[in-house]
Every structure is written in structure tokens, then in C-alpha cells.
């Protein structure tokens, strides 16, 4: 299906308000409220008209000053129909997003990565621990309020010259 057909087909399935569809750069985009997300994702997976069998990516966007702070973005692809869909859901810091590991196994590590980098929790995830950063890491590094030059070394760092002592200020930033 083309993007326009996906959107019209999707508006037939979900005629009520709250689900907003648009076409961005040739791809169909759906803005969905958090409470309708599981239903929409299951329809996308199960419905033979859509048949999105490949869970390509899940990522997040941090809009620091906006009221629901994050966008969680799902990228779906159908290998049989060769079409794509992007699903965006607005969540706040404390809202847990329903996990989609039951639908796509590939969502496991991607949700762990989003938890690691942005601190968005996924309810129902089997093993929600950090994927990339180490366990001792504090905070979530891709949040906009994480200082870009903050370092959290695992072992003590020494400098080759004693004139360059490492100073750590109160924000945890290492400066020579």
C-alpha cells in the first residue's frame, strides 16, 4: 500500500478522534495517545491488510520544555507489503509505556536502549536493565538536561602530568 492508502485504511479501522494521521516526507505518520497505543500496535501486527511484521526501531525525542516531555517513536515495516509506518506517542517522564515485546521480540533490546538513554520505562518488559551504559552510570545521557561534558569514569583517572590535575565540579564535570 502507499502511504495515502495506509492512512485511509487506518482511519477506517480507528474512526474516533484522538488518532491523528499525516504524511511526512513520503511516509505515513500516526500520532496516537498513550492509552490507545497497545491496541493500535496489535492491529498493525495482526491485521493482514497492514501486516507490519518487522519492528525496525524504537527511539525517543526529548522536548525538554514541552509538557508531555518525550515523544516515543516506533518505526514499523512490512516485508510482505513493502510499506512503512511511523507511530508517535507523547509520554511524560513518569508515564510507563506499555511494552511491545509480546508482539515483536525485537522490541526487547530497543526498549532497553530507550530506557538506558532517555529513562522512559516500559511496563511489562521482561528485563528492563541498561543495555549500553554500565550499571554504575547515574542518569540518562541522551536527555537534554544531562550535561554534555559530564563524565562518570569507572576507575580513577590520573593524568600524565601533575600540573594537570583532574577537577570535578559540583555538576560532575571533569576539567583539567
Amino acid at each position, binding site marked *: 500500500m502507499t502511504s495515502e492508502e495506509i492512512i485511509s485504511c487506518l482511519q477506517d479501522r480507528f474512526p474516533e478522534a484522538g488518532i491523528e494521521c499525516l504524511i511526512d516526507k513520503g511516509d505515513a505518520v500516526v500520532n496516537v495517545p498513550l492509552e490507545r497505543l497497545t491496541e493500535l500496535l496489535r492491529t498493525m501486527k495482526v491485521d493482514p491488510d497492514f501486516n507490519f511484521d518487522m519492528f525496525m526501531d524504537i527511539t525517543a525525542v526529548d522536548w525538554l520544555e514541552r509538557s508531555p516531555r518525550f515523544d516515543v517513536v516506533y518505526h514499523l515495516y512490512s516485508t510482505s507489503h513493502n510499506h512503512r509506518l511511523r507511530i508517535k506517542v507523547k509520554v511524560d517522564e513518569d508515564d510507563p509505556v506499555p511494552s511491545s515485546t509480546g508482539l515483536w521480540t525485537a522490541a526487547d533490546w530497543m526498549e532497553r536502549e530507550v530506557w538506558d538513554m532517555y529513562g522512559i520505562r516500559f511496563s511489562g518488559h521482561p528485563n528492563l536493565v541498561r543495555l549500553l551504559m554500565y550499571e554504575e552510570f547515574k542518569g540518562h545521557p541522551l536527555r537534554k538536561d544531562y550535561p554534555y561534558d559530564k563524565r562518570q569514569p*569507572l576507575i580513577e*583517572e590520573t593524568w*600524565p602530568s601533575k600540573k594537570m590535575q583532574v577537577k570535578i565540579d559540583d555538576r560532575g564535570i571533569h576539567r583539567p
Partner: protein
Amino acid sequence: MEITYGSGEKPPYQNAVDRILGWGRKYSIFFYPFITACCGMEYMSVASSHYDIDRFGAGLPRFSPRQADVLLVVGTVNHKVSPVLKIIWDQMTEPKWSISFGACASVGGPYDNYAVLQGVDRIVPVDIYLPGCPPRPETVIDGLLKLHDKIQNQKHDLFWKRRNK
């Protein structure tokens, strides 16, 4: 390593011993390649036949730190992997040297962020810094020759046992 000889303790054959030991060590370098990133491809091209570093006695990498003389830190080192690098350096037996291969290993390169160690000289001492992203094989050979000079000019304390009694 600079050694100051005590007064009257330098034997007449000291210079000959320094020269012979340095000559023997510099032509039998065993690398330990600690390869974490794309600079490893450049290291492979150096180690293969076109830029044959076996000419300089450094052709055989050892993949055990206990058998290696020179730690070759090739590529970006994260904070997550830095304890591993420190343990490997501590496991290597003396005499040992280390080369920081490329911009990332030397100063962190373009990655000034939360994850990357800003230069391996913060956790292990570094003898030779190789610039470049990645360094050309000629740069690596130049650095290897500079390491040769460094090894050749090292002094050896023949009476360390007596001195530390």
C-alpha cells in the same frame, strides 16, 4: 625510565650492556593489539605484507598480555571498557611499553561525550602517541622506529638488587 647511577657504581661494561640489551629488545617486539574500533583495520594493513613490520621485528602479535611487550591501544576506549584496559596493562610483564594508536586513543578524537575516555594516558602510561584518524601505515612505522630509539636508549640498572637491599 631514567636511572641515576650511584657514585662509583657504574661498571666499565655498563654502556655495552645497555646497548646490547636495547638492541636485543627493540628487534623482538611482541605487540598486544587492544583493538576496539576502526583503527584496527589500519593496524591490519600495517601488519600485513605490503607494509611488512616484520622488518622491524614486530610482526608477531601475541594475544595474551603476559607474553607481550608493547600494548597497542587501537581505537576508541569507552569508560565501560577502561577497567579491562587497566587490567591488561597490569598483567603485562616488565619491560613493557605502550603505544596509543590514533586520535581517539590519544585524546578521545571527535568523541567529546559521556561515553568515551578522553585519552588512554589517563589510565595507562603511554610512550608513543600516533596522530591521525586513522594513522597512515607510514605513521605507524615512524612511531615504531621512535619506540625503537626509546628502547635502545634505555639504561639498565645492573645493581638494583644491591641498591634495594
